[in-house]
């Protein structure tokens, strides 16, 4: 210390002395170790020094002393430079010597050269870090030998154990500090890029693989489960190619769906996430992503392989058994074998013998025994197990017992020597595929004996035969079971095949188009004669009552009924085509009844008639056919118009079309005829007297002449196809529109009319009845003729229902003449500037389409604003300004009120028609009686508890009335803003809810009333209990405050006493249905002369008009 301090001035002060003593002690304690170190270094020094020159010794010594001195100052204060460094032991120091020189000798002569290299003393520096190793204050007199003074450890000296950061011991040390902040990563994270348009490589997979399905699961079921995740592009169940059975593996490919806004791979991901582990039926399925179907293929392959292997094994086993049995049977005099043979399972496979599991180091030779065998080296015939089969096949005839294979080759073991010899003689060197079987005979197996006795042989064979016998005996019930199962399976499989495959085939065969084609092949001559159209307005009852069939017919050929029609009529066979059909049907006869069942069920559902559908069928068939014919007829009409008045360009189209159409029509009619005919048979069977007419109609080649209905039918006009540019479009778009209309027309016109003449198709043999076409009496055939001067017909009938906007006008005007008329008609109208007419037209049409919700084209009703619409004179509501809307007007558009009104109307209607809709008074969940009992019990218990507590009675403040509350909810009300509704049926005189609020005195209530009025709260929530108290629920209260007033209420308020205090309770006056609004009579004072009478909005029949 450079500064002179207290210690200098008062060296004998006790504190100074104490300090010195402490220092000394510390120094002593440290120096023991230091000394040791120093000792070593100094010894080294010494040696080095002595090794060196003498003159340096001085310096060496000095340095060493200095070094020793330098070490922590107090080490050797007393020792002078001349003290021998070796004995720089601090023990010799004495306390008094301390006094002399407490300080470090100032100059530190450390010449760098003389510094011995080994010594690495720390430079003299200030002591900074200290730790108290012994604190006398804390350890009061525990370790008295250390004295009364604290011991420090400076600068961490003396610590030998490696120092470790104690924070590391603490788990999650930095976690708290890191919360919410960025973590420094020690591992370089992998960046995952989301898949987007810039991604190179295949996109994420949209295909999933489902495994673990039960073989009975069908595609629709799976589809149903997985449809929810996205749009399925393809769903393929994997089947076993050999058996056709399901493998329980399915792969689904999802497509990108715009409607669901889901990309395929997203759907696939979702499917995997949600579908994996799903249970379908009894199976737990596994779903995985499957890029490009590779996994699926692998899985399928795996399964098939497994199957194959199993099969092979089984086959081998069976073969082995069979062989062993055979062998046994072949042996002499084994009567047991014969008996056994009877029980033997008929199916035995060669292969089973060859799949015996063999150990790796199996040596076939050892198993030979003394049986005669022939060895074929593996060098000659490689292949191991696989070859065995073939070899067996080859050498079978020589009495082969078995073939033992190992890596060396094959040992073909024979039953007897003779066989072996024969084989050897005949087959040695024979070709087995590309190999030659070079054989080496082992007549006595591996025993080396030349021959074996027959008896031995016999015994051996017998023993061998017996064991399989025994095992076979054991297996008997199993084999029996298997055989019977297999037999049954065969039957079911056949049935199934018939049902699925044959039926589908038959179904397809019955397709009229196909049929027609086939018939055409058979019957080239089809004479067609014109017939009369029936054009009067005739209503066919069947058609009108079943409009759905019109739509059905629009679907592609739903022909089951027709087929059904055919089946029972095996006796009537009008046409070869149907013959053919019939025959195929006959083949599948046993299943037909099942088909019938299906059909019947379907038709029952559709027609709603209880019968087996026979009565409805004809109608259905007629309907279905007629709609097709109707379509045809439209086309006919199109073709039939006189082209004379039309423009040249259009003519070609027309001419082109009719021809084709006719041809098509022929086909069509041919088809339909047949069906018609066949269907007719059914009505005949049902003996419908009505259908007596026989109508024959065939289209004529002269159809391109005008074909028009004679009589103008009201409301069933064939909409004129535009011969103009949008011809095709109209046809398509009008089909749905016009279906209904045309349907009826066609019905009458000639649905039945188009039929082939019986003569054409070898029907002569048939009883005419079968061919007779029964039709409703009222129908007439369409009459086809030219327009004559006396009998003028317009070629075009305008549809008056089309609105004449731009589209309508375009449709209306068919040629120049029309256009001139239009121009004349509109001459009086003002001309406006529309700019580019095309653009204008486009725009107009677009707007119209948008307003008509997307359907461009002709419209039949103007786009108007649906529902309530009050046009504002200035144009829009905002320019109109503020207007107070009366409640009556509000009731016309507010949805809630409309609903309420509708319900009221319904109720009124029901009341009128005597359908007293009884309010469903199903008992609430717990009867009121049980409620009361429970309540009483609860109250009693609570009281007991209160007594026990006997001091804190207020803690358990229990409002019993809450227990009796019924479930109610508040919602928007038609009466006023918000109201209370019952959530379940409430019986009459049941307590519903208590009117809870602040209990205030009369005067307070008056004050509050005024205050509320001033602050704008128009509604009053003050309820009087008695003369002096009022319940105020304005700011604090229960939901009973939402109950509205009605002049014919369904609730009433009563005041009851509960636990000594008066409460307001709402009871039901009558049975209240679920979701009915609760109302009661407010019983306001009548203020007949007040200007501020509150109008009543309850809307009930007995409404007084005002609340007060």
């Amino acid at each position, binding site marked *: 210390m450079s500064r002179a301090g207290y210690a200098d001035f008062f060296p004998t002060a006790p504190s100074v002395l104490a300090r010195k003593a402490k220092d000394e002690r510390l120094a002593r304690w440290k120096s023991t170790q230091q000394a040791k170190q120093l000792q070593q270094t100094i010894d080294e020094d010494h040696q080095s020094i002595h090794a060196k020159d003498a003159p340096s010794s001085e310096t060496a010594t000095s340095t060493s002393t200095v070094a020793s001195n330098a070490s922590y100052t107090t080490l050797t204060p007393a020792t002078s430079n001349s003290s021998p460094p070796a004995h720089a032991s601090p023990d010799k120091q004495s306390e008094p010597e301390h006094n002399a020189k407490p300080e470090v000798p100032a100059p530190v002569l450390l010449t760098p050269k003389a510094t011995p290299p080994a010594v690495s003393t720390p430079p003299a520096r200030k002591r900074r870090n200290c730790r108290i190793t012994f604190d006398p204050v804390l350890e009061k007199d525990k370790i008295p030998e250390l004295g009364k003074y604290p011991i420090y450890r400076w600068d961490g000296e003396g610590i030998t154990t490696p120092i470790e950061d104690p924070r590391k011991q603490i788990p999650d040390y930095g976690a708290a500090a890191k919360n919410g902040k960025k973590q420094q990563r020690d591992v370089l994270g992998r960046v995952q890029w989301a898949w987007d348009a810039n991604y190179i490589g295949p996109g994420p997979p949209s295909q999933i693989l489902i495994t673990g399905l039960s073989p009975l699961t069908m595609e629709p079921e799976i589809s149903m489960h997985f449809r929810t995740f996205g749009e399925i592009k393809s769903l393929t169940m994997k089947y076993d190619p050999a058996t056709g059975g399901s493998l329980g593996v399915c792969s689904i490919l999802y497509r990108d769906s715009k409607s669901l806004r889901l990309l395929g791979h997203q759907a696939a991901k979702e499917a995997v996430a949600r579908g994996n582990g799903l249970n379908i039926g009894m199976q737990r399925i596994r779903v995985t992503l499957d890029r490009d179907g590779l996994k699926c293929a692998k899985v399928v392959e795996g399964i098939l392989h497994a199957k194959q292997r199993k099969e092979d094994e089984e086959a081998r086993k069976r073969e082995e058994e069979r062989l062993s049995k055979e062998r046994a049977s072949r042996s002499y005099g084994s009567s047991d074998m014969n008996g056994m043979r009877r029980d033997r399972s008929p199916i035995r496979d060669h292969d089973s013998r060859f799949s015996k599991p063999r150990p790796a180091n199996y040596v076939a030779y050892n198993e030979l025994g003394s049986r005669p065998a022939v060895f074929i080296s593996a060098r000659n015939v490689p292949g191991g197990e696989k070859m065995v089969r073939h070899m067996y096949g080859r050498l079978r005839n020589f009495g082969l017992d078995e073939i033992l294979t190992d890596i060396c080759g094959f040992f073909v073991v024979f039953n007897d020597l003779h066989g072996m010899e024969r084989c050897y003689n005949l087959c040695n060197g024979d070709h087995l595929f590309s190999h030659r079987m070079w054989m080496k005979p082992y007549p006595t197996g591996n025993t080396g004996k030349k021959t074996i006795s027959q008896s031995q042989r016999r015994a051996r064979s017998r023993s061998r035969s017996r064991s399989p016998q025994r095992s076979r005996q054991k297996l008997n019930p199993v084999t029996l079971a298997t055989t019977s199962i297999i037999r049954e399976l065969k039957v079911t499989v056949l049935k199934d095949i018939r049902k699925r495959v044959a039926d589908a085939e038959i179904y397809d065969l019955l397709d009229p188009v196909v049929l027609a084609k086939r018939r055409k092949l058979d019957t080239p001559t089809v004479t067609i004669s014109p017939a009369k159209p029936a054009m009067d307005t005739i209503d066919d009852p069947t058609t009108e009552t079943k409009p759905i069939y019109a739509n059905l017919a629009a679907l592609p050929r739903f022909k089951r009924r027709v087929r059904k029609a055919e089946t029972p009529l095996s006796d009537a066979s009008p046409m070869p085509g149907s013959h053919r059909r019939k025959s195929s049907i006959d083949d599948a006869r046993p299943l037909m009844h099942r088909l019938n069942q299906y059909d019947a069920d379907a038709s029952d559902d559709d027609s709603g008639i209880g019968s087996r559908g026979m009565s409805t069928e004809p109608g259905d068939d007629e309907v279905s056919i007629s709609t097709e014919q109707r379509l045809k007829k439209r086309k006919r009409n199109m073709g039939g118009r006189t082209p004379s008045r039309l423009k040249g360009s259009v003519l070609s189209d027309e001419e082109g079309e009719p021809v084709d159409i006719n041809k098509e029509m022929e086909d069509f009619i041919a088809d339909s005829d047949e069906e018609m005919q066949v269907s007719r048979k059914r009505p005949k069977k049902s003996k419908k007297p009505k259908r007596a007419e026989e109508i024959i109609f065939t289209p004529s080649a002269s159809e391109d002449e005008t074909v028009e209905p004679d009589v103008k039918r009201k409301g069933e006009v064939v909409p004129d196809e535009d011969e103009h540019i949008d011809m095709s479009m109209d046809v398509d778009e009008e089909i749905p529109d016009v279906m209904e209309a045309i349907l009826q027309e066609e019905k009458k016109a000639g649905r039945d009319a188009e039929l082939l003449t019986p003569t054409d198709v070898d029907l002569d043999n048939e009883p005419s009845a079968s061919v007779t076409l029964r039709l409703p009496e009222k129908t007439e055939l369409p009459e086809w003729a030219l327009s004559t001067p006396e009998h003028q017909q317009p070629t075009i009938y305008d549809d008056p229902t089309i609105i004449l906007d731009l589209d309508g006008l375009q449709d209306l005007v068919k040629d120049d003449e029309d256009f001139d008329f239009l121009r004349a008609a509109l001459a009086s109208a003002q001309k406006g500037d529309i700019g580019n007419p095309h653009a204008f037209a486009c725009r107009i049409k677009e707007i119209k389409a948008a307003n008509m919700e997307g359907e461009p084209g002709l419209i039949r009703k103007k786009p108007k*604003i649906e*529902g309530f*619409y009050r046009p504002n004179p200035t*144009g*829009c*509501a905002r*320019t109109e300004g503020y207007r107070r809307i009366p409640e009556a007007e509000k009731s016309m558009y507010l949805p809630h009120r409309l609903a309420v009104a509708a319900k009221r109307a319904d109720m009124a209607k029901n009341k009128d028609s005597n359908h007293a809709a009884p309010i469903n008074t199903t008992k609430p969940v717990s009867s009121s009686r049980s409620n009361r009992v429970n309540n009483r019990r609860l109250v009693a218990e609570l009281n007991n508890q209160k007594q026990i507590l006997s001091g804190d009675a207020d803690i358990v403040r229990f409002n019993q009335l809450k227990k009796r509350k019924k479930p109610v909810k508040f919602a928007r009300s038609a009466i006023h803003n918000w109201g209370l509704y019952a959530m379940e049926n409430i019986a009459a005189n049941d307590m519903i809810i208590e009117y809870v609020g602040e209990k205030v005195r009369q005067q307070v209530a008056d004050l509050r009333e005024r205050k509320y009025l001033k602050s704008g709260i128009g509604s009053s929530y003050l309820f009087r209990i008695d003369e002096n108290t009022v319940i105020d629920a304005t700011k604090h209260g229960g939901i009973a405050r939402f109950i509205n007033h009605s002049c014919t209420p369904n609730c009433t308020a009563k005041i009851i006493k509960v636990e000594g205090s008066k409460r307001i309770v709402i009871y039901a006056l009558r049975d209240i249905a679920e979701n009915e609004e609760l109302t009661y009579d407010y019983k306001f004072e009548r203020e007949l002369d007040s200007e501020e009478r509150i109008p009543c909005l309850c809307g009930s029949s007995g409404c007084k008009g005002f609340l007060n």
Partner: protein
Amino acid sequence: MEDPTQNPTAPPPPAPDNRNTPAPSSPPPLRRPEYSLRYTLKGHDAGVSSVKFSPDGKWLASSSADKTIKIWDAETGQHEATLEGHMAGISDIDWSPDSRTIVSGSDDKTVRLWDTATAKLIRILRGHHNAVYSVSFSPRGTILATGSYDEALRLWDVRTGNCMKTLPAHSDPVSGVHFNRDGTMIVSCSHDGLIRIWDVATGQCLRTLVEEDHAPVTAVKFSPNGKYLLAGTLDSCVRLWDYHRGKCLKTYMGHENVKYSIFSDWLVTRGSYVVAGSEDSDIYLWDVQTKEVAQILIGHDNVVLGVSAHPTKDVIASCGLDKMVKIWIDDS
């Protein structure tokens, strides 16, 4: 009217402004606005119910009772496009935050979304049972709020066009809706005098502000910093509400408003003002803090129904029953 917060020496209370006024020292006295009429845009055949500047400042859209919406260039006043298709007059329009879509609500009960680039209809949203009175886009452009005469407030998903929520908001026609800055709250006002604040996510009503006399509230708007509301009522007042505390802070008067729903807007490009139209054909500008009338713009012939402030420039657009749209610019 006493404003207890006003103190000439002390710095003014924080402006309802997204710019932070320097707090410690007193702000430099802002010059009064000097707007002058620049363009008059004619073209509508019936009263113009609403004008709005696009958020990117390039366009001005005006809706009218003649069933059309016209888009004008904000700089030059050129007529850009006309959007037709509504079957009845249009009461309100709004721009999407990316300035690419306009939504319009009309008397025909439909809300239509238009693409401004192609001037074509994107979608029709149906659902309201009476005239749609006011529309507002959320700041993210994903949700649309519409208020209608059928007392309901509907929230629509813009992308799909589905109505997400129908809130039984009021018991009288809903006259104004507006989203706040971050799209979490909607304020709606109605002719029953209530101003209600709704949480968008849940549809809960968070707050109801009501003035004593229940004067019909005809327009409501959040302040740019989302802390205050500006509400116009049919008692010729425009009020500034602090809806957190439920208190009305400022009332701006001087104009006339007893019948029509007149829009009011914030003018914050230079100083902070409130601008609103009036039934006396003038446009009033008030200083937000002092509530003084800073300027009166004269030019219209009939009730000024709507005003809109340009997002970045000192430009105001106004429209009225005189079928004209006027653009005012402050040049100085």
